[in-house]
């Protein structure tokens, strides 16, 4: 099966304008991103994430190496037929309404004329901007801009969606809504590449991640493999009493296991915030979806803290 994105030995240099001096933004990057997954492209500022995305989109030509989308070289316009892109801090034509803007991009992507209006309504409703669809983009808040940006990226129903900092400057509720939309995109069979500094969000929704630093790939793999502590397990118990500790430790010791810690699970601040401020049905949906996952993660993090305390 063809990979959604295939990058081989990609190097990108930018001339600095002083003789032959060059800035190497990306160095010998090789990546295979399989179809139908959420892939997190992470790294500090200036690590080469945006340059990599621009090379994927054909906006920059690689100095060396190759890059292809679904088997088509990025340099070809055809490679972008099945790609939706939400740029970082998107700025759109302020004088157009949300509907007109998405329609404009739909026409650029040559969505069939007979289906265009229905499709535009569909994606606008899907990103939760139905009420604001006929307002000028210039009046939109940051979160609304991100959502209309997502709508324009999806209007032609692409197989690959590239999101560069989709939650930058967005409040936790908006951020949760965008996470929920990304997961729905995955359910629809799409491949999503997510660049984000919100590692909590990446952890929640990504299947695989790659970490870049100073233009080089320093880590890549399944998120679960990278973050889970393989030799530890957490068990969440209802109505547990502290006096069980010794008995439980003995029981485990008899089975060559060791009780590391017993802690009360905690809700994350993110979750508490969403629960109290949650403005939309979407956020509430997201909360219930994440409740079980959050409990597990909180228990694990509690144990982690205990371990640190012990080691210190």
């Amino acid at each position: 099966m063809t990979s959604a994105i295939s990058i081989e030995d990609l190097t990108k240099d930018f001339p600095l304008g002083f003789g032959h001096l060059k800035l190497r933004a990306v160095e010998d990057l090789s990546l295979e991103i399989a179809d139908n997954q959420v892939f997190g492209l992470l790294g500090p500022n200036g690590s080469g994430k945006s340059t990599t995305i621009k090379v994927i989109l054909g906006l920059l030509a690689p100095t060396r190496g190759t890059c292809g989308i679904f088997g088509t070289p990025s340099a070809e316009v055809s490679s972008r037929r099945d790609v939706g892109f939400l740029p970082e801090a998107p700025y759109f034509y302020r004088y157009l309404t949300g509907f007109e803007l998405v329609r404009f991009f739909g026409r650029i992507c040559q969505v069939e004329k007979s289906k265009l209006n229905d499709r535009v309504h569909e994606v606008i409703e899907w990103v939760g901007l139905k009420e604001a669809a006929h307002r000028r983009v210039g009046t939109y808040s940051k979160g609304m801009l991100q959502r209309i940006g997502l709508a324009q990226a999806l209007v032609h129903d692409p197989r690959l969606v590239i999101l560069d900092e989709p939650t930058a400057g967005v409040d936790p509720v908006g951020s949760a809504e965008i996470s929920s939309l990304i997961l729905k995109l995955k359910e629809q069979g799409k491949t999503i590449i997510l660049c984000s500094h919100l590692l909590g969000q990446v952890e929640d929704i990504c299947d695989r991640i790659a970490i870049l630093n100073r233009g080089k790939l320093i880590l890549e793999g399944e998120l679960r493999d990278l973050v889970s502590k393989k030799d530890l397990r957490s068990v969440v118990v209802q109505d547990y009493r502290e006096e069980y500790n010794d008995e439980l430790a003995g029981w485990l010791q008899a089975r060559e296991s060791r009780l590391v810690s017993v802690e009360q699970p905690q809700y994350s601040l993110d979750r508490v915030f969403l629960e109290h401020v949650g403005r939309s049905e979407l956020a509430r949906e997201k909360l219930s979806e994440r409740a079980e996952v959050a409990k597990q993660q909180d228990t694990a993090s509690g144990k982690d803290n205990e371990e640190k305390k012990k080691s210190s």
Partner: protein
Amino acid sequence: MSKVVFSPARINIIAKNTFLEAVRQKFFGFLVIIALGIILSSQVFRDFNFGAPELKFIADFGFGAIVLFGSVLAIVATAQLFFSEIENKTAITILAKPIFRSEFIFGKFLGVSLLLLVFTGMMTVILSVLLFWRETAIMEGVDPEAFEAGRMVAYGDIFLYGIVQWLKFSILCGITMVVASFSNTNLYSVILSFVILLICHLQYLARDAWAQMEFLPVQLAVFMLSAVFPNFQLFNIGDQIALGESIPFELGARIIGYALIYIIVFNLLAVFSFRKREI
């Protein structure tokens, strides 16, 4: 994956959007008001000697306003509309779609050219109305005998003048597009384009010099200079019209053909330069 082919429909979409963006800019409205003010104020300075000098004065004044403000609009609007796409990063969103860079450039050019057509059309109509009104007043009140042979102003030629100027502005738009396609700032594009405008107006001097030169390398250099930059003096048919001379059809057709060649060449150069630009 099916191939994406060059699409005039996408050019049309970009052009319409560029035009919409342009007419919403305060700069366009400002120039229209100033140009209208200057054309309309021409009658403040009118001369009553047999009517003819007054009409010539109004025509000269109007033509001057069209040329001056049209040139400013062609350069500034092109550079601004191009760089607003780059600086606001809307170009990234558009070019990340299945669209050829040539379609983007042609769309931008056509959008600005449409803006220039609207500007020139508006100015030409206002000038014609003003001339018609003054000519009628002079015919009726001042000296009816001077108009025995009919109206003095050739209104058809005034519209031909408008078309010729629009084509000149479109060449200027193409030149600015070439400059903007490789330059990094709006200001640099505007300044360089104004310098080229000046060269194009003085280009006839190089052409004359080339004819008189004997040293071959210098002759070739001057010839190149006169070939690369269009001769904007060719578009200066306002004097003939103001003097009441009609413009021969062949001359009009030759100017239009000349302009179209330069428009195509500059657009292709802009595409060639923008093709490799890193955004």
